[in-house]
Structures are given as structure tokens and as C-alpha cells.
């Protein structure tokens, strides 16, 4: 299509979030009045239309020549305040269009899935309203053309995740899980906000092109005030704090496991596919800043790869399916953060893995969801097993997801994870190799825990009681899983070492920092086989240990590891206890002390003044005892006083 046609299509990109916003508004305000099916239809329809428009925009973007695929358009001036001028505008470029596709695409699939999952819930329409609101805020996040609009989306998705985690608010645990998620996000947002303040203080604006112009200037090109190395590192680390909060990396990952309390489509959409990848988007969007300071890139990489390994160990010890998947998500996110941390080819590899993770993780979650749906909420592996025969489709699709995440050829998981490992290995920085080593170990653990889960739930003999009678989920739930399975198999082709289509597509965004495409060299083949080997090894050991798990062995194995360490490991290194004693309780004491201080200390001192005046009054009143002679003596006292004053003042000469 012609250039102007593409231009005015791109100009309408802001319609995508608008559709979802409008439908969210309609659904939440109508709430209960809109009966069961219609709420869902509106919700799913809105996201569907949004997806179609995104595809059209994607096509328009593709039609533009490679180097002109960046389209920025300002809608209106949002905040005019002295030096602080913020416009509400959007930026469509390869990076953001990919995320839009992910959000609306996977989002649509999951919306269709939840038509079945949420059926019968009395807050049916509100659920879809909140899901649409989430999709809209995620789109605002990726479409924003300056850091503040991005921050708006950033916090709004946090709020939506709070709402959706606590969707079944009747159980208090769900609502406190929601609170925990929001608080952790807010801590992250605090770091992000301070980072933004630092950017504004040094650069004077929050627009991407101004800030990155300054970054390029510091690297020696272009006009603009160069940013000092120290400030740049500080900015990057503060952004990292925000990223760890949102993408559940090591320090602030505690909330993701509890977030499983929400309905499964929520976990699939928000806590697997889209929201948690916001951190990756932020780092890749702000890559010029990270390019400035090598120290911050190293820290990001090691935080990422460290989390990948650490979370994988926890996932191995979990018994509930969704918690395993939660920790697996944290681990996979670790990979992505490490990829965009290392930079160069890592950026493209990270994005590649984000989308492939979007496919297979959503697939796994939907699988878990249909499994729980069938077993009426039962998800403890020790009471499952042998479901393959009863739920063939779910088992098969779950297997596809498992294979993909474990990095078994030909699924996209293999290609994207190895692209990351490759980027880590080939990066010029010295510590790249170390990160690659950790990554490889984590890949082995990933395959191990993934197939432990598969074998314990789907093979071996039945260990669920006879009151449960599982059955295959309805088609409306299986078809979305099928679509995702197809997606995860085909998506691998997007960035095969030879063609590197995705790499090329992202070139306008990352430009010189993007690093060159990978070719089929000997070394690349070697790396690929190493990754495959590790994955196959993991699957084999899992098969050996858990495939023919009988009821007793299933339970006994768990306890064979020495009890103390076992419990500690099983309860995810007891981070919750640490939080309870390290943060919540001292906080409670501190606020208690302050409240009492406020209550009496300040209050009493202030009211004390009043009391003091009253006491003084009472003393003086005692002197007033009614006898004339006392009055006269006070009177005379006054006269004597004045006489003394006169003498002192008047001097001699009476």
C-alpha cells in the first residue's frame, strides 16, 4: 500500500487501546445488568477487533521501507507545567508492534478460553471488563512515546493485576495476595519513578527521542547534553528496580507465586504472557541508556540469569501445578532479562523468547486450567496422576508446551532459548561466558521440573479419589490451547540462525546496538546441539525418576530428601516467613509506636499548654480569698513595687 495510506493507518494506532478502554468502561459500569453470555461476547469481541486492527497496522508498518518504520504521533499536550512538558502521544515501531501483536493476539485467545472458564460466575461481566482494562493499559504501556505515558500504563497494569488476582474476593487469601502483588509492584514503581525523576533532572524532558538523543550525544554522536556515566548507571539501576518489581526478578519476585490465587486465564494472560514481560520491553526500549554504562548491563544480566537458575530450583520442589508454572515463568523471565541485559544480538533474542514464551507458557497455564477445571480446583500433583487416558487432548497439548519450554527441537522454545544462550556466549563482554554456563544449568533444571510435572500429573497410576471424575474440557477451552500449540511450533521459524527475520525486522528500533545476524557457523551449530543435549538429558532423568510413579512412591519420593532441608526447599526457601519477620512485623511495630507517639506525645504537649494555663489560673485564684485586708495588702505590695521602681529610676533627691 502507498506511503500516505500506511501513514494514515498508522495514525489510527491509538484506536486499539481506545476500543478496549471503551469496552472496559461499558462492562464495569453495566456490571451485573449485562447477563451472562453478552458480557463475554462484548469483551472477547473488543479484544478481537483490537487484534485485527493491530494486524492491519502491522501490515501498514511492514509496507514502509525498513529504515522508515518508526511512526510517532502526538495526540494532545497532557501536562504543561513550567519546564515539565509532557505530551500524550504514541510511537509505533517494530518493538511496540510486536508487543501489541502479543498482547492482543494471546489476549484474544485467552479471552475465548475464559468464556468457558468463567461461565457461571456471578461477576462474569466485571471479569471481562477488568480483563479488557488490563489489555488497554498494557497497550498504553507499549504505545507510549515518552517515559511518563509508559509509567501510566506501567501502574495501571499493576492495578488491573491487583483487581484480577483478588477477583474471588470472598476468600481473604485472594485479596491479600492481590494486595501483596500491588505492594511489590509499588516498590518497583517507586524505583522507576525516582529513575524518571533523575532522567528529567539530567535531560530536562521525558520524551524518548530527547532522552535517547542525549544518550547518543554522550556516546559521541548527535547534539544534546551528554549524560555523565555515574548518572547513567544510576538511572539504569533505578529502572532495573522497576523491572524487578514488575517482571518478578529476584528481590521483588515474591508476589508472583501468590498471584496464582487469581483465575487461571488471569495467570495465563497477565502473569505469564504479557504484564510480566513489561520489564523486558522497558529495558529494550531504553537500550541507549543501558548502552552507556557497561556496569549496569552486567548487573542486569546477572540478576536475570541468577533468577533463572534460582527460580528453577524452587520450581523443582513445588507440588502444585500452577506454582510450578509460576516459578517457571520467573525463571524464563530471568532468561529474557539476561538477554536484553547483554545487549547486541541479545535484544532480538530476548524479544524472540518473549513471544515464544507467550505461546508456550500460556498454553501450559491453559492446560493447567482445564486440568483444574476438570478436577474441581485440585492441583496438588500428589493427588493427580494418570490423567493422560482421561484427558488426551489436554495431556497432548501440555506435552507440546513442555517440550517447547524444555528447548526440544523443533519447537520455538528451543530456538529462542538457544538464541539467548548464543547471544550470551558470543557477547564481547568477558562475563558473557559465565552467564552462558549458568543459563545452560538452568536449562537442564527447566527440562527436569517441566517433565516431573508432566509425568506426575499425566502418567503413572491414578491417585485421585473416586469422588472426582475428570473429563476432557469443552471445545471452547481446547481450541485456544490448540492455537497456542500451533503458535509455539511455528514461531521458531521467525528467527532461525540463517534467516534471522526477526532480527532484521527489529533493526530500525535497535539500530547500531542490535548486533549482526547469526549465520550457520560451526560454533553456532555446536551451541545449538549443546542446548538440545541439555534439554534431552533433563527429560530423560525426569522420565527415569517419575514416569512410573505409583501412589506410594509419588508421596514417598517427596519426603526422602532430609525433612528440614526438604521443607525449607519446598516452601520456596521460606521467603514468606522472611517477609513476615523482616518487613511486616517491624513495620507494624514502627507504625504502632508512631501512632502512640502521635496520640499522646504531640497531643499531650499541645493540650498541656492549655492545662498549664488552667493550673496557673487556679493558683492565682487561691489568692483571691475574699478578705478586704488581703486585697489591700496586695494593693500595697503593688505600690511598694512601683515606689521601688521610682527609686531605682528616679535616683536621689526625694
Amino acid at each position, binding site marked *: 500500500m502507498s506511503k500516505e495510506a500506511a501513514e494514515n493507518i498508522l495514525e489510527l494506532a491509538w484506536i486499539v487501546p481506545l476500543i478496549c478502554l471503551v469496552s472496559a468502561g461499558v462492562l464495569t459500569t453495566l456490571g451485573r445488568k449485562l447477563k451472562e453470555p453478552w458480557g463475554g461476547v462484548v469483551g472477547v469481541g473488543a479484544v478481537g477487533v483490537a487484534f485485527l486492527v493491530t494486524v492491519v497496522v502491522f501490515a501498514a508498518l511492514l509496507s514502509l521501507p525498513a529504515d522508515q518504520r518508526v511512526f510517532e504521533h502526538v495526540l494532545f499536550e497532557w501536562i*504543561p*507545567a*513550567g519546564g515539565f512538558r509532557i505530551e500524550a502521544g504514541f510511537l509505533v515501531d517494530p518493538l511496540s508492534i510486536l508487543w501489541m501483536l502479543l498482547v492482543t493476539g494471546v489476549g484474544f485467545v485467552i479471552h475465548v478460553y475464559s468464556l468457558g472458564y468463567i461461565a457461571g460466575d456471578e461477576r462474569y461481566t466485571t471479569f471481562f471488563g477488568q480483563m479488557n482494562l488490563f489489555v488497554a493499559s498494557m497497550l498504553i504501556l507499549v504505545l507510549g512515546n515518552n517515559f511518563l505515558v509508559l509509567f501510566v500504563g506501567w501502574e495501571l497494569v499493576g492495578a488491573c493485576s491487583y483487581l484480577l488476582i483478588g477477583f474471588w474476593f*470472598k476468600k481473604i487469601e485472594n485479596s491479600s495476595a492481590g494486595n501483596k502483588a500491588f505492594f511489590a509492584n509499588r516498590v518497583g514503581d517507586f524505583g522507576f519513578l525516582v529513575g524518571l525523576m533523575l532522567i528529567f533532572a539530567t535531560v530536562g524532558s521525558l520524551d524518548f527521542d530527547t532522552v535517547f*538523543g542525549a544518550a547518543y550525544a554522550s556516546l559521541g554522536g548527535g547534539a544534546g547534553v551528554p549524560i555523565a556515566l555515574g548518572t547513567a548507571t544510576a538511572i539504569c539501576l533505578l529502572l532495573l528496580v522497576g523491572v524487578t518489581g514488575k517482571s518478578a526478578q529476584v528481590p521483588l519476585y515474591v508476589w508472583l507465586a501468590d498471584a496464582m490465587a487469581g483465575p487461571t486465564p488471569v495467570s495465563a494472560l497477565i502473569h505469564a504472557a504479557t504484564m510480566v514481560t513489561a520489564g523486558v520491553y522497558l529495558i529494550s526500549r531504553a537500550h541507549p541508556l543501558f548502552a552507556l554504562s557497561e556496569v549496569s548491563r552486567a548487573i542486569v544480566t546477572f540478576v536475570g540469569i541468577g533468577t533463572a537458575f534460582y527460580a528453577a530450583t524452587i520450581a523443582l520442589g513445588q507440588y502444585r501445578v500452577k506454582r510450578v508454572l509460576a516459578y517457571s515463568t520467573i525463571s524464563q523471565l530471568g532468561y529474557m532479562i539476561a538477554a536484553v541485559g547483554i545487549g547486541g544480538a541479545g535484544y532480538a533474542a530476548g524479544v524472540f523468547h518473549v513471544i515464544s514464551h507467550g505461546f508456550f507458557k500460556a498454553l501450559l497455564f491453559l492446560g493447567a486450567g482445564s486440568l483444574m477445571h476438570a478436577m474441581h480446583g485440585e492441583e496438588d500433583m500428589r493427588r493427580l496422576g494418570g490423567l493422560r487416558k482421561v484427558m488426551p487432548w489436554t495431556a497432548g497439548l501440555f506435552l507440546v508446551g513442555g517440550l517447547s519450554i524444555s528447548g526440544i527441537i523443533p519447537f520455538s522454545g528451543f530456538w529462542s532459548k538457544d538464541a539467548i544462550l548464543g547471544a550470551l556466549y558470543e557477547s564481547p563482554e568477558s562475563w558473557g561466558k559465565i552467564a552462558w554456563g549458568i543459563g545452560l544449568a538452568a536449562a537442564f533444571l527447566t527440562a527436569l521440573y517441566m517433565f516431573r510435572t508432566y509425568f506426575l500429573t499425566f502418567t503413572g497410576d491414578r491417585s485421585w479419589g473416586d469422588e472426582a471424575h475428570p473429563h476432557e474440557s469443552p471445545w471452547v477451552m481446547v481450541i485456544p490451547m490448540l492455537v497456542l500449540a500451533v503458535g509455539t511450533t511455528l514461531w521458531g521459524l521467525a528467527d532461525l540462525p540463517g534467516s534471522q527475520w526477526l532480527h532484521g525486522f527489529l533493526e530500525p528500533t535497535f539500530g547500531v546496538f542490535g548486533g549482526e545476524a547469526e549465520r550457520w557457523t560451526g560454533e553456532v551449530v555446536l551451541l545449538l546441539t549443546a542446548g538440545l543435549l541439555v534439554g534431552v538429558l533433563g527429560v530423560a532423568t525426569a522420565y527415569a525418576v517419575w514416569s512410573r510413579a505409583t501412589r506410594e512412591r509419588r508421596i514417598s519420593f517427596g519426603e526422602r530428601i532430609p525433612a528440614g532441608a526438604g521443607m525449607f526447599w519446598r516452601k520456596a526457601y521460606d521467603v514468606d516467613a522472611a517477609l513476615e519477620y523482616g518487613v511486616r512485623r517491624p513495620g507494624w511495630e514502627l507504625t504502632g509506636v508512631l501512632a502512640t507517639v*502521635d496520640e499522646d506525645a*504531640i497531643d499531650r504537649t499541645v493540650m498541656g499548654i492549655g492545662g498549664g494555663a488552667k493550673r496557673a489560673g487556679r493558683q492565682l485564684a487561691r489568692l483571691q480569698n475574699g478578705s478586704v485586708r488581703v486585697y489591700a495588702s496586695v494593693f500595697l505590695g503593688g505600690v511598694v513595687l512601683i515606689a521601688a521602681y521610682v527609686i531605682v529610676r528616679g535616683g536621689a533627691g526625694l
Partner: protein
Amino acid sequence: MTLAAASSDMPFVTLLVFIPIVGAVLIGLLVPSRRGDLAHVLGVGVSLLNLAIVIWLLVAFDADSAKFQFVERSSWIPELGIGYLMGVDGVSLFLLALTGFLFPLMLLGSYHIRRRLKHFTVLVLFLEGVQMGVFGATDLFLFFIFWELTLVPVYFLIGYWGGPDRIRAAVKFFIFTALGSAFLLAAIVATGFLADGPVSFNINEIIKTDFPLWTQRILFWGFTIGFLFKVPVVPFHSWLPDAHTEAPTAGSADLAGVLLKIGVFGLIRFSIPLFPRAAVEAVPILIALGVVGIVYAALVAMRQDDAKRLIAYTSISHMGFVVMGLFALTTTGVQGSIFQMLAHGLTTAGLFFLVGFFYDRRHSHEIAAFGGGVRTVMPVYAGVFLFMAFASAGLPGLTNFVGEALTLFGTFVGHRWFAIVAATGVILAGIYMLWLYQRLFNGELTVEENRGLKDLNARELAVIVPIAVLVLALGIYPKWVLERIEPSVDRIVTEVERKTEGTDQEYVQPEQTSPGGIEVETAPAPSEAEHDEAEDEALSGTGGEVSP
């Protein structure tokens, strides 16, 4: 605009002040006390009329002029140099608007008052008129009269229609504010005299005097301490929680919505412009007070077991942002503090109305009275409460976020560590708000009496929905408000810069290092400042001089 030109000489402020007062007097005299409801309806009518005039003022206000508009000037007590001077500028425009907007809702929201409804309406209307006067007055003496007069109606609102421990709260409120205004009175008298030329209380005259440093310090602190009682800043704040807990719904909504703003308005209108050098010197102390207020009040708020008292502490925390932004003395910061006042006025008044609705049903605003699970019984109420809770916690897309962001960004430029500590307020806000929400609404219904509660009726919605709409609108499109505030704020800050040039309190607004070629234009060119002088001459005019 022709409308603006036509009404440029409309005595807006006098109208805004005296329509409610005259209305109050008429209702007080004519309507028999038995017919409380008639008085109430008339009251709502009068305040709606006032709202109409406020809207007309908003439309007629010339957005890009930094000087006082709709100036009214007549001599009142020339003997003492006191003139009846009224004027509206960017700073006071939206505070007048906020007052005009909140009062009809307050009257509408206090439908349940049974005891002496007529006197209640009369007092509320009188309070509205007086508070309009505070924002409109540009003569120190006139300002002080309206400032003190706000004391009496609120005292009776809390004392007569309040909760169980209302007397102590009312007396405490009265004494705190009176103590504050004692400082203020002494400072006003002294300023009037020490200003050059004949004795005059017209701020356009006084602003021309460059007081010697020590005098400036004393006068500045006289004014500021008086205002800090009202803001309230932490050490002087212990009257607010009691006043809020005991005040009736309308009283709390006014206290939070408008009364707290008088203190800060005084700081912007009098303390900073009149004594710039002392203000610049006091900046670190006052920003520290603001930041302490943010963190301290947020922490104490978590331990409150009365919903209203908790919200009172949150408003102290929000006002901490306002004070911090104001004394950052950057255009962004001051503009942010004014916008935050507007936002805080809306959200906190909204929250108090909501708690008031529950109080109408259960006659208690203890968190235990909610007991959790109310969401199952009153979903709409819970939804609106959540919307307001998120607004108060500073969720982007709603007004508070814009206010807080501006104050934080404005302060960070000059005082990094203060802004960072203040930013923790964002976390604390999220925590206490959502924790309150959980204790009130989530989980199972534990308190039996709540089972039969009816959801919000039409009247209650008519009160809360306008606020919610404004909270959303101002969050998405604050430009209309910000661009009207900017010129006046810019003038104040550049005035401070101009007057502190060459003194050891030399102050230049910490500019963001402007990237590359783009020259970030903040301060208007100096030539325009001279042009202002000529303009001021016309403004000060008569009304101030004392005939010897």
C-alpha cells in the same frame, strides 16, 4: 473572547462571597426552624447559584494573563489603610472553583441531619461565603477577617452536629486555629506598618517594599507559622484527626476539601511573595517539614482503626506533598502543589462522603463496623470507594497522580534526597489505602447488621458521581487547569528570583539542563517583568493610603 471582555469588570468575588451570606441571613430570618427541609432545599439552591457564577468566572477568566483579574477596589477604612480589595488570579481561581463545586454537594450530602437543619444550612452557607472571601481577598486585613470567620461556623458544625466526643474536638480545633491566627494577626499588623509609604494593607503595595532581612525573617515566620497550623504540617496537626472523626459528613468534606487549602493559599499569596529572601532561606526547613509530614502521617494512618481518622491522616500526608512542592520554588513544583490541592480536595472530600454514606446507615465509621465483606452487599458502593481509593493512592490517569508527579519532579530538580524520601509516600499510600479497602470490603460478611444494607441511592450517587467524573477528567486532561495556573505561578517564582538578586539569598530557579538546541522556555523575558510594574501601579491605586 467577547464574554470575557463583557464581564471583565463583573465583581465576581463579591458576588461569590455575599450571595451565600445573604442567602444564609435570609433563610435564617425568614424560614421558621420547624421547616428545616425547606431551608435545606433553599440552601442547595443558593449554593447551586453560586456554582453557576463560579462556572461563569471560569469561562470568563483570561487564561494567559498572570495578573489579578476582576479586581474590585473601594476604600473601606482609610484611617487604618484598609481597603476592600478583591481579585482573582491563577492561584485562587481553581480554589474558588473547588469551593463552589463542593458546597452544593455538601448540602446535598447532609440530607440525614435531623437536629436543627435550618441552622445547619445557614452555617454551611455562611461558611461558603467566608471561604470564598479568603481566596478572593487581596487586602491583608480583609483576608484576616475572612480567615478568622471560617473558625466560627466550623466550630459549631463540629461542636453541635458532631459525633460523641465532639466538644473536645471542636474546642481543640478552635484553639489550634486561633493560636495560629494570633501569630498571623501580629504579623499582619507589623507588615502593614513596616511597609514603605503610608500605612497600607494592599498586597500590591506591600509587595514593592524590600524589607530588611531580619524584619523579613520575623514577619515571614509570623505568617508561616500561622498558616502551618491550618495546613496542617506535622507538629501542628493533632487537631485534624479529632476534628475529622467528630465532624458531620458535610463538616469533614469541607474541612478536607477547602479548609486545609486556606493555609497553603496563604503561603503562596502572602508568605512567599512578600518576603522572598526569608522564604528562600526557609526553603530547606519547610520542605523537610512537608516530607516528614508525608511519611509520618502515612505511617500513623496505617494504625488507625477508625476509617474517618485514617482518611484524615492521609490528607495530612497529601498536604505534605503540597508543602514540599510549594517550597521547591520551581514553576513545576508550585503548579503541582496547587493542582495537588485541587486533586486532594476532590478525592478526600469524595472519600469522606462515601464514609458518610455508610455512617448514615450504621451510625459508625469504625473499621470494625464494616467488618469486611461489605462488597457482597453493596457492590456499587464498593466499586466507587475503590475508584476513590485508587485516586487517593495516586494511580496514574487520575488527578492525584498528576499533582504528586509534578510536586515530585519539581522538587527533585532542586532537592534530590527530599524528593526521593517523599516518593516513598507513593508506596505507603498504596499500602494503607488497599489495606483499608481489604478490611472494609473484601472477605466474607462478618458483621450481621451489614447484611441488610441497601446500596447507594440516587441522591448519594448524585453527590459522588460528579466528583468521580472530575477526578477522572482532571487526570486525563489536566491541561485546561494547568495552563491557567502557570502564568501566575511563573510570575511569583520570577518575582522571587528578581527580588533576591544580589543578596546572599540569591535564588535562581534550578533549571533542568536543557538538552541540545531546544531552549526550554520557563521564565518570561525580563522585559515583560518591567511591563508588569506599570500594570501594578494601576492595580494598587486608592484603597490603601491613610490620610495623615
